[in-house]
């Protein structure tokens, strides 16, 4: 990732309809200006990871961690700078991946496996493994909306794990599953580390970061405060707070 900038606009009055824009155009004629503030969520962020290295991202709320993950996932585009990734990406962003509540658990698993890059035939073979890992085999024909939010996150995680991506983007989602499931995921992550896969972990849990990530990026107000080996970076973050 090289010199990446991401800007958001915070309008003082949100204009999101045709009517608003017409009204807005009139007020410009009257001499008022369209008012919005610019907010740079990420400023000049650069870093490089080697093959098989994992990255921890730390920093207070609102410092740009999730935005950074979304840029890596390709969901958002940066205003400037370049991002290069090699290998398939499996994102588990912001608590779950947004399932369709009216379809069954199994149907949702199939859809999201395909969206994460697996072929449909491949996915059919793996559905049983996924549901088993998530502990949801009993509920496979239930409508997804009847599941608790913890169960939905478990499903999202289990699908991502089965996709054979090389890069996993995990946004604090791990905190939601129960203890037993968390343990299972950590075991899986240890396996991934052995297989030289990359995990990008946004977390406030420094122990996790220290265990899994060789490098850590400390963000504050959208700027890189520190980047380097996890031990030193995590210590700097803890000292500041």
């Amino acid at each position, binding site marked *: 990732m090289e010199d990446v900038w991401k800007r*958001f606009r915070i309008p003082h009055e949100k204009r*999101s*309809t*045709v*009517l608003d*824009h017409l009204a807005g155009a009139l007020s410009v004629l009257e001499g008022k200006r369209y008012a919005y503030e610019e907010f740079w969520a990420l400023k000049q962020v650069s870093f490089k990871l080697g093959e098989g290295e994992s990255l921890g991202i730390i920093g207070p709320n609102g410092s740009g961690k999730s935005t950074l993950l*979304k840029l890596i*996932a*390709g*969901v*958002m*585009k940066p205003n400037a700078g370049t991002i290069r990734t090699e290998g398939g*990406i499996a*994102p588990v*962003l*912001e608590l*779950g*991946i*947004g*399932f*369709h509540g*009216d*379809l069954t658990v199994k*149907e949702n698993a*199939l*859809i*999201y496996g*395909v*969206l*994460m*890059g*697996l*072929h*449909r035939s491949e996915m059919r073979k793996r559905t049983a493994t996924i549901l088993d890992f998530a502990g949801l085999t009993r509920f496979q024909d239930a409508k997804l909306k009847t599941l608790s939010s913890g169960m939905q996150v478990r499903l999202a995680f289990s699908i991502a794990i089965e996709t054979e991506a090389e890069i996993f983007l995990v946004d604090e989602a791990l905190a939601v599953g129960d203890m037993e499931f968390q343990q299972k995921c950590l075991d899986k992550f240890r396996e991934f580390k052995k297989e030289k896969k990359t995990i990008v972990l946004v977390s406030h849990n420094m122990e996790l970061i220290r265990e899994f990530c060789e490098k850590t990026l400390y963000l504050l107000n959208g700027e890189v405060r520190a980047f380097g080996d996890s031990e030193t970076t995590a210590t700097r973050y803890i000292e500041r707070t």
Partner: protein
Amino acid sequence: MRNYFDILTILAEKDFKVRYRNSVLGFLWSLLNPLAYMAILTLVFSYLLRVSIPNFAGWLLVALLVWRFFSVGTAQGLFSIVSNPSLVSKVYVPRYMIVLSNNLANFLGSSLEFLVLLPLLLGLGVGLTVTALLLPILLVLEFLLVFALSLSLSALNVKYRDFYQLWDIALQLGFFLSPIVYSASLIPARFYFLYSLNPVTRLMEALRGIFLEHQLPTVFDMTVVLGSIILFLALGLLIFRRLEKGFAEEL
């Protein structure tokens, strides 16, 4: 190379299932709408207003199905991005695929409507000939037209959240600007050329041609339809490309 084909079909399948609530009964309900419309309009125009078009019910049914394919297709295509925020901001899928898969689901539904309801024409005393075999080609053309328009509509509806209101009015207008309940021959000569440039009108006339008059679509029909598809596709790609960068932030 990603699994784009699988992504497209699985999303279309999802839309189709959700639309018909995963049941045959759901599909049957969707047939009731054009049937009821045909019955009511036939009653009003044929018996009360005494419009003298031979086989009015069958004549009406063909145009109604064409109209339904177009209006339902674009209206749902318009919402395809806004109603799937998670496909935009939680995973990366090429965004035009969200629109295309929605249109594909509608294409499948409308084609089934044609297949189930066209035998009714026989019951209404229309004899079908080989020209009826052109139906698939005309349906594919209508699907392309719906997709071309849905690209701009879906993107504009993300930026302007009340855009669907405008399209709704446009559709109401379109219903009466197409020869559904009246014959195109009623249009005054000086407006006729402009009037006949409507691609939906051309599709209606072409389909009435192959079913009721056993005639091939005219060169004019095909030129207008293909020309509009190319025009709207170019416009749609232009608008979609420009606006899709902002989708994840606006949703």
